[in-house]
């Protein structure tokens, strides 16, 4: 058999992820059926929960905001051939930056707090990836391992801070004092009443801006070109006179910065204070979002909304179907990550064959090849 032709672009970008998503949903359905519940009812509850009313949509968008940032963090690094698996830790520690901005500027206006908090959180997030970035660039330590380690170091650091120096006066658990007044991000409910009590807030706009910024950075700047070149062939960029180690550090700092902004949505947008585990594993969901979105801003936006819907719909499950626990979300997310991320090889060869047989251009070439052999 001749070598397989790659898939047409639309199939690679849209069809394959959707098929994998379907596969993940089917397997999730089996899990639901295995614990004696109706998968069809579950999917109905999930769709209704995520998109059925304003509040549901609001929550979906609120989760999506997180996932856009963490997805961008993974995607930016991925373009340069780097894997930042530490988005979770970077977003968590960046909570300090968001909190600081909310506290310091609590008496001003949110229009001032938003950019400052974004900058602070991004700076702290970037700082948290600096050591892994430096070690990857200068000492060749694998950034995947070091960022995993830094997730745990960050978690320990935050628990220490929230039980000690950052603990708010009179608070019960490990949490900071509450941010009040202008330090909080206005919820979109103020503009669209239908969102109700959903915590979707103005940091959604920062997320959309970040998507645009990422697009411009990656495809329309000299730096973006260099970083994509490095992702394809690091030796080539080195011979072209680009300092790869400088590139690695800069790209990972940008990546950590994107991850850090997640904290603005959480600390100032939803929790109104810094608590433990603000990210709710959003950093890991970001990996799936970037994968499904093919590291492209438009894809990331769609994938983030999808994962937001999965999270929100899954949360609704426990109310309408008490036998299905909230951890079902984790199972669904895990399966989506597994099928879209690690098991693409399951469907791709089959799909390629299908396109070889039925694709118009493929058939054309096949026909011409056959006629060529018969005529000669």
């Amino acid at each position, binding site marked *: 058999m001749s070598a397989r032709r790659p898939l047409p672009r639309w199939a690679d970008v849209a069809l394959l992820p959707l098929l994998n998503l379907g596969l993940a949903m089917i397997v999730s359905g089996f899990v639901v059926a295995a614990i004696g519940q109706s998968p069809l009812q579950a999917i109905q509850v999930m769709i209704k929960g995520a998109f059925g009313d304003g509040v549901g949509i609001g929550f979906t968008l609120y989760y999506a905001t997180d996932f856009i940032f963490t997805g961008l963090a993974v995607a930016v690094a991925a373009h340069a051939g780097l894997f930042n698996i530490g988005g979770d830790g970077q977003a968590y520690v960046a909570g300090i930056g968001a909190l600081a901005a909310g506290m310091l500027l609590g008496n001003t206006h949110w229009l001032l707090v938003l950019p400052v908090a974004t900058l602070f959180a991004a700076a702290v997030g970037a700082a948290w990836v600096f050591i892994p970035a430096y070690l990857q660039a200068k000492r060749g330590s694998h950034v995947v391992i070091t960022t995993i380690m830094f997730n745990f170091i960050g978690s320990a650091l935050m*628990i220490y801070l929230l039980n000690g120096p950052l603990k708010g006066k009179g608070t019960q658990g490990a949490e900071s004092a509450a941010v009040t007044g202008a330090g909080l991000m206005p919820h979109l409910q103020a503009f669209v009443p239908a969102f109700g009590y959903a915590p979707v807030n103005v940091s959604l706009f920062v997320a959309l801006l970040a998507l645009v910024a990422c697009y411009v950075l990656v495809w329309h700047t000299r730096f973006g070109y260099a970083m994509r070149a490095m992702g394809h062939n690091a030796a080539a960029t080195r011979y072209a006179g680009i300092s790869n180690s400088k590139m690695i550090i800069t790209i990972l700092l940008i990546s950590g910065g994107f991850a850090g902004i997640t904290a603005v949505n959480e600390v100032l947008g939803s929790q109104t204070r810094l608590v433990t585990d603000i990210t709710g594993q959003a950093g890991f969901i970001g990996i799936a979002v970037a994968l499904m979105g093919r590291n492209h801003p438009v894809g990331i936006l769609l994938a983030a909304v999808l994962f937001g819907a999965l999270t929100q719909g899954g949360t609704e499950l426990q109310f309408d179907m008490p036998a299905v626990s909230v951890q079902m979300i984790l199972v669904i997310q895990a399966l989506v990550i597994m099928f879209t991320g*690690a098991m693409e090889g399951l469907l791709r060869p089959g799909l390629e064959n299908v396109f070889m047989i039925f694709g118009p251009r493929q058939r054309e070439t096949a026909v011409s090849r056959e006629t060529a052999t018969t005529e000669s």
Partner: protein
Amino acid sequence: MSYDIVISMLAATLRLTTPLLLGCLAGLYSERSGIFDIGLEGKMLVGAFAAAAVSYLTANMWLGLLAAMAASVLMAMIHGLASIAFRGNQIISGVAINFLADGLTVVVAIAFFSLGGDTPPMPPGGRFPPIIWPYADQIRAVPIVGPIYGDLLSGQNILVYIAFLAVPITWWVLYRTRFGLRLRAVGENPKAVDTAGISVPRLRYQALLITGILCGIAGAYFSTAQGSGFHKEMTAGAGYIALAALIFAKWRPVPAMFATLLFGFLDALQIRLQGVPLPIINWAIPVQFIQALPYILTCVLLAGFIGKAIGPKAGGVPYTKER
């Protein structure tokens, strides 16, 4: 510190080291064969749940252990399928395994036991009892050596002994058997192994099988030996510490034991120091610092300041036969 405290600290170290050591050796087989495995945590968690569930239902710890191994091997094979057959990204597969274990154990636990994600405590016979060595009570009275025999070596459960026995066995398998030679080779240069007519996928599946079995034992240790019953997220990062220890040990079995003993000791120390100010400087070391120390030490090692940790060359790269 009195001698009694030292002994009890060391005994606690042994108990806390056991799951780390089993996980670390599990990771060693996988990574030596060229498959990154950050899913150790998930496999342990699934093992812990399976052990507790089956042990509870059958009141037989051995059946629980078998179930733990089976469940963990199943996860290892999913990882194998993704990273060997489908040539997927091994890191992402590992992340997915951990998520899946996190969710699935609780979903199934609630469906079966309705205890908010836990299993009931183990019935008699469902839990690995401490094994008292012969004459432990009499020998304990002997000064210095007595407590070492009576309270440290004796009185652990069988899984502790299995874990430490697994170290020389792993060493022997890795460095003295044909399988071990091939395993090390396939992690460094799969092409060469393939050229010699040995199946790369087969070797890697075999390695993952051992990984699964060892993670299963580690899981069973959590729920049916150290504790009694499964609790939500009960492995609490042990899989990642084991991973850190594996790097710290530079992917070698005997150093793996020392690395996990060090991390186990830090854990024991952290439990003992909880809020106790140090006598001399009168300042309580934050327990979180000690908790983070294994990760910090591993990063320092990775930075190359105390020797260089270089993993198996073919690690993380799916093997493609043709071309």
